[in-house]
Structures are given as structure tokens and as C-alpha cells.
């Protein structure tokens, strides 16, 4: 059916098709990405399990997991949110559903191709910019550019005079990620070498996280909470502060990923200061969203989308506290290159960002397909398995990281650190596997919603109906 629309006329494509295609693609990537994660964790916890196969070794599979969850799950859920929310906020339709469908198609194929190559080992050797340059060009021109064009044209052809905060972020981030992607992959096109190459690699990684993964997730919360609670956003002004502070403070601290390298000291200090200042938009955002909930906190219990969103926003507090301070020289020397960083990364991507994307996909799919969620029980199971699995992951890796840090001070043979970490690696594997199970349950639930969910009458929102099962 998707193929019929892809080759038909734009006017014939039902509204929301691109968003639905993006949603299911993103959930499938989530299942695959977390499955890969679970397998990788098993490799570290039980190294002699399934030996001898080059393709299944950790070194080959580690980055397939990372890029599948970042560019498959999170980024495609972003695509879904943009296809769904941007037109609604402008009181209009998506500028081109057809472009959206093709965008999603090239996204799925390009990412699959890029990840297959990385799995085989054909990579650039640079973290986050691993994909080889032909795939980089594919992603730049067939993934990010069409997405940006669709979002910008939808905003430009809106029927409201104002542009709401969510759309500022969507527009700005689609523009910024395009620039970051092209500039960050320059070491490959221009064959840059040495510290320049290392620094640009981390500039790319940092800015992908800071100007794409973080703000777009936050933008989703700005839509969901006012929409579902019915409350107006607590403060437009704080929204301004959040937006500008992200652009200025989050685009500058790239060097904080390389504090132990011979980068210029002034650059590291500059990065550190800017990094602490990231707490400004973080606190602005969290306070704005939580204050918008006034009088409607019962929805945290009663409504899945609000529950996911607020869980994510609450966890943004430890996330940004960690992030702001762990990148100062005084703390970075201890936790750099340890499991603490892995825990922090998952707090950001699996907890904060994913929570918001899950809320967006839950809300969006139900609204666009006009079907009520098939099963609240499965939805609750998804939430709790994800939360408990993630917390197990986070706590175990944080402890492992602190142990590794201690290993830096006490001159113990490195193997003692590895031995000490083992129980935490096992715990992490268990937690991650719980998350994988939750994503499988979610895929099933959304598929059943599409097939057998109760039809939502015209003019009503899904959350106005009672949950079933």
C-alpha cells in the first residue's frame, strides 16, 4: 500500500501516511537496536559465548547497535514527530506526504546499507561518523535534506501567524543537523588527519547529540504536555531562553569529549564553561514542562503519553547535572572512558530522549490511525519493563564506571578492574534485555492497535476515550 502512495499523486495520499510509515519504521529499528544492544552486553558479560564468528564479535557489532538506535529509532521517531506535529501546529497539512514517504524509504534503505557495511567492518574508524563517505552523502541528501525541506515548507506555508516553540526547534534542528553532518564528516571527504581529524570527529558526535537528539526531544514535550493536559505552556519566555541557550551553549563544548588529549588548553576551558552552562536550558526546559502540568498531575498515572513524557523530563535533571559537571577537568579525569559515560549516554538516549519519542509515537499513531491503543496492560508492561530495565542498566554501569575510575588512582593491574566490573556487566545485560523485551511488546501493541484498536470518533482525541484491556 505504501508503494501505491509513493508512486501516486501527492494529493491522493492520506494525511499522516508519512508519519505512520516513520512510526512503524522507528519502532522496528528500536526492536533491532535494543536486540543488538542486548547481544553486545551478553558478549561482554559472557565472552566465550558464541565464538569464532567474526561478524558476531563485539568490535563489529558495537557501533551497529549505537547507530541503529540513534539514526534508526530516535531520528526516525523525530521524523515521525515532525511529519505529525509540524502541520498541526501550523493548522495545515504536511507540505508533501509523498516526499515524506520517499524520505522514510531512503532512510530505511540507506541506514540498512550503511549499517551492513559497518557490521562487515567497512567503516571510517571514527566514532559516530563511522559510515563511509558514499553513505554519508546518501544520508545528507536523501535523509536529512528532504526532512528539512518538508518541515521548513510546512512551517512556511502555515495558516497561523505565529510559530510555536516546537516548530522553532524542529526547523532549527533540521537545519543544524544538516550542517553538522556535512562539516563533521569532512575528515573523510577532505582526508583531514591528526588532531584536526580527531577534533572534528568529536565535534560531529557532540553536535549531533546537542543540536539534534536533545532539542528535538525537548520540542516534543512542549507539544505533548499542553495538548494532553489542556493547560497552556507555563511560560513562553522560558521557552525563548531554552531555545537560544541550546543553540549557543550546546554547540560550543565539543572539546569536552577530548579533555585528556593535547588539544589547546583554551579550547578545553572554553568547552568546559559552555558545557556547565548547558544547565541553563536544561533547567529552563524541565521547569517549564513540569510547571505546565499544574493541576493535571493525575494524568501522570492515568495517561501513558504524559507518563512517558514526564518520566523523561524528570530524568533530564540528573542527566544534565551529570553532564554539566562531568565535563569539567576536575571530574572528567576520573570518569572519562569508563562505564559512567556509557551509563550517562543511555540516560540521555534510552531514558530522556526515548521517553519523549515513545510518547510522541504513542500519541501520534493513535491520532493518525484514529484508533485507541489496543491494550493498556501491554502499554503499562512496556513502561515498567523499560523503566526497571533502564534503571538496572544505569545503576550497574554507573557503579562499574566509578570502579574503573578508582582503578585509575590505585595502581592495580588492569585485569582487577575487569574482574570487579563483571557482576555489573551481567546486571547491565539483564537490564538491557528487559528493555529489548519491552520494545517487542510495544511493537506488538502498536501493530494490534493498527489492526484492532477501537476507532476514535471524528473530532475526538484518543486520550479522551477510556483504555481497554
Amino acid at each position: 500500500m505504501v508503494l501505491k502512495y509513493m508512486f501516486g499523486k501527492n494529493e491522493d495520499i492520506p494525511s499522516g501516511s508519512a508519519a505512520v510509515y516513520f512510526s512503524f519504521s522507528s519502532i522496528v529499528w528500536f526492536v533491532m537496536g535494543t536486540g543488538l544492544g542486548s547481544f553486545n552486553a551478553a558478549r561482554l558479560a559472557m565472552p566465550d559465548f558464541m565464538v569464532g564468528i567474526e561478524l558476531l564479535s563485539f568490535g563489529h557489532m558495537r557501533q551497529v547497535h549505537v547507530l541503529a538506535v540513534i539514526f534508526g529509532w530516535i531520528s526516525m521517531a523525530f521524523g515521525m514527530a515532525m511529519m505529525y506535529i509540524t502541520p498541526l501546529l501550523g493548522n495545515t497539512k504536511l507540505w508533501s506526504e509523498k516526499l515524506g514517504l520517499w524520505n522514510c524509504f531512503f532512510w530505511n534503505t540507506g541506514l540498512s546499507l550503511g549499517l551492513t557495511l559497518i557490521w562487515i567492518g567497512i567503516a571510517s574508524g571514527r566514532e559516530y561518523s563511522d559510515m563511509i563517505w558514499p553513505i554519508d552523502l546518501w544520508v545528507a541528501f536523501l535523509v536529512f535534506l528532504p526532512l528539512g525541506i518538508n518541515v521548513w515548507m510546512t512551517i512556511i506555508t502555515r495558516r497561523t501567524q505565529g510559530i510555536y516553540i516546537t516548530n522553532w526547534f524542529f526547523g532549527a534542528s533540521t537545519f543544524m543537523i544538516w550542517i553538522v553532518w556535512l562539516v563533521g564528516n569532512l575528515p573523510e571527504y577532505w582526508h583531514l588527519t591528526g588532531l584536526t581529524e580527531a577534533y572534528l570527529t568529536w565535534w560531529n558526535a557532540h553536535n549531533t547529540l546537542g543540536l539534534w537528539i536533545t532539542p528535538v526531544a525537548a520540542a516534543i514535550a512542549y507539544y505533548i504536555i499542553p495538548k494532553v493536559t489542556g493547560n497552556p505552556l507555563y511560560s513562553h519566555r522560558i521557552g525563548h531562553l531554552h531555545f537560544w541557550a541550546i543553540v549557543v551553549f550546546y554547540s560550543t563544548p565539543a572539546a569536552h569529549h577530548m579533555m585528556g588529549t593535547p588539544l589547546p588548553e583554551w579550547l578545553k576551558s572554553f568547552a568546559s564553561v559552555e558545557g556547565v552552562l548547558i544547565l541553563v536550558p536544561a533547567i529552563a526546559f524541565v521547569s517549564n514542562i513540569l510547571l505546565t502540568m499544574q493541576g493535571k498531575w493525575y494524568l501522570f498515572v492515568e495517561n501513558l503519553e504524559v507518563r512517558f513524557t514526564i518520566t523523561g523530563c524528570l530524568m533530564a535533571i540528573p542527566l544534565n547535572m551529570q553532564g554539566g559537571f562531568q565535563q569539567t577537568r576536575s571530574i572528567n579525569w576520573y570518569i572519562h572512558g569508563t562505564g559512567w559515560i556509557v551509563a550517562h549516554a543511555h540516560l540521555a538516549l534510552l531514558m530522556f530522549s526515548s521517553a519523549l519519542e515513545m510518547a510522541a509515537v504513542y500519541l501520534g499513531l493513535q491520532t493518525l490511525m484514529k484508533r485507541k491503543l489496543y491494550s493498556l496492560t501491554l502499554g503499562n508492561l512496556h513502561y515498567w519493563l523499560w523503566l526497571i530495565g533502564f534503571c538496572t542498566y544505569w545503576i550497574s554501569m554507573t557503579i562499574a564506571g566509578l570502579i574503573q575510575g578508582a582503578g585509575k588512582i590505585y595502581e592495580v593491574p588492569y585485569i582487577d578492574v575487569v574482574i570487579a566490573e563483571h557482576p555489573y556487566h551481567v546486571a547491565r545485560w539483564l537490564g538491557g534485555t528487559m528493555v529489548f523485551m519491552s520494545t517487542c511488546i510495544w511493537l506488538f501493541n502498536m501493530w494490534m492497535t493498527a489492526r484492532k484498536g477501537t476507532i476514535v470518533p471524528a473530532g475526538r482525541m484518543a486520550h479522551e476515550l477510556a483504555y481497554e484491556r
Partner: protein
Amino acid sequence: MASFREYKIGTRMIGIALGSSMCITLIFPSFDIAASVSSEVGLDKQLTAGWGSGFMKDDPYMEGKEKPWKVLIRKNPKTGEPMEPQYVYVYPAGILLPNGVTHPDNLGKNVEELSIEQGKITEAKRADGTVFMISFSDKFKDFKGDPMGYIENATATKGWTPDDVMKNAADEDISHAGQGKAIWTREGCWWCHTLLPEQTQDWQAFGAPPMLGDFNGESPTAFGSDRKGPDLLHVGSRNSSREWMTLHFFNPRLVQPHSIMPRFDYLWGKVDANGQKIDFVKWRAEYMDYREGKRVLAPEVPLPAKDSEARMVIDFVLNLK
């Protein structure tokens, strides 16, 4: 579409904000980083690894193709007279030249001048094949006050050709570290082992942190990600045993029972150094017997063939001095 004038101001402000941010974080540091002068370590690294170790057209499957050899010569390649052993870097005809040779400004002030004028690096042509070496000149001093190291094109200055060097070199003196770095990148060793002891606290355990000029011309730098194993930048100085490395790569738990490193037995290929086929299934079964206490000694690890990927990556690791 009439809209608030704030949006026009806002879009311009985004441009200014992002532009200034990129200027401060990308353009300003580039002057400092570009001014770095390649140290002797940096020269050795780039000459050993060659043009690049990641995906490249000449080596799309990252098997170590089109990479130079680092050879320890004990006799003069032209005359055959014995000489003080020294390392040379052999670039056979057709393979890409290192970045410092094709873009000498990568080398930094003074080193660039010496390499061009005394080293004659600009006379090196990819199609002809070149032998490089690191020489020292009293004309300039490095930051420690020692004679400055520079790249010398020994084919132009001494007439040594790649064929001269390779026909007299014993296999033990030929290091495949350049090929090995491609394997290192492909197999993802850098996801667990960093190549960057840190300035604050790693001196004792892992050796001296790298200095600014140590990376010029290296691609990719492969600092590593988060550490799940020890840093390896100076591992060749701590552990120079080829036997230990061979056992460790085949199955890390042979020499380090609690290691979580994956096995790299598949890098041995199909045959060992004597041309015998390797029976992996039998080895694994015997190893499990040993683990369960049914065998006293672990099964013997086959010696890697001279052209195997295992040999290349072991050469790379042992070269990390």
C-alpha cells in the same frame, strides 16, 4: 504570509549564533592545531601507517592492502655492507604516499623545510615506489633541545629502492604494522582499547601521554572510545613477547583467564605458518576440556601464517612502543 518581524530577526540570529559558535570552536582552534610541529613519534606513526587506515578506495574491505612496510635493515641495501640497524619505511610502487609527503605543511615549521630541502620528499612519486627514513638535523632543535627529526626520501638521497630493501630483509625484520592498523580499525579494537594514556593520571600504568606533534598526518587517529581493557599506546614497551600476543589474540582467556576480550582466532585464516590447515572446531573442543579440568595443558595455538591478518595485527600491537 505575514508573520512577526521577530522571525526575520530570529532567523538572522540563528545564523549569527551558529556561525560564531562554529567560528570559535572550529576555525580558531584550527590555527593552533595546524601550527603543531610533528615529533619523531608522529613521523614514525604516519610513515608506518601510510596514507590512511580506514575505508579507502584502494582497500575497501580493510584487509590491509596498499600499505607500507616498516623494515629493520641491517645491511646497506645498495652496497650490502653491514650497518647499524635502522628502520626504513618501504612504499612499493603504486601505493599512496604518506600525508606528510604529499602535504608537507602537515609536518609543521622546520620539519617541513628540512624534509623538503634535505629529505627531498617532494621527489617521491607514487608510481615509482619510495623508501623513507627518519633522519635528524642539527640545523634546528626540537622542543627538548635535541636535533630535529625529519623525513628523508632515501630513494632520492641514497638510491635505495623498495626492491633493494625487500630482497635483503628477513621476514622477522619486516613489520606489517601499517597493514595491522587497518585490521585494528576494521575489527574495532579501538572500541575497548584506547591509544591515549591521559594527561592527568595514566602515566604510571600506561606510560607517557601523547604530545601535540604525535598525530600529524595520522588518519584515523584511533584514540579509542571508552576503555574496557588497558590502554595500548605503549604496550610494545611493556610486553614485547610475540608468543604472549599470539596466545592472547587466539583466545585471551588462555593467558588472562578473566579477560572479556573476544577471541580473534578467525584472523589466522585457514592455514598456519607451516601451511597446515587449522582445525578450529577441534581446538575449541580441546579448550573447553581444558577449562573443565579434563586436560592438564591447554591446546597449542597455531603459529600465524606470514601473510595472515593475525600476523599483521600482532605486528601493529608490538610496534606500539
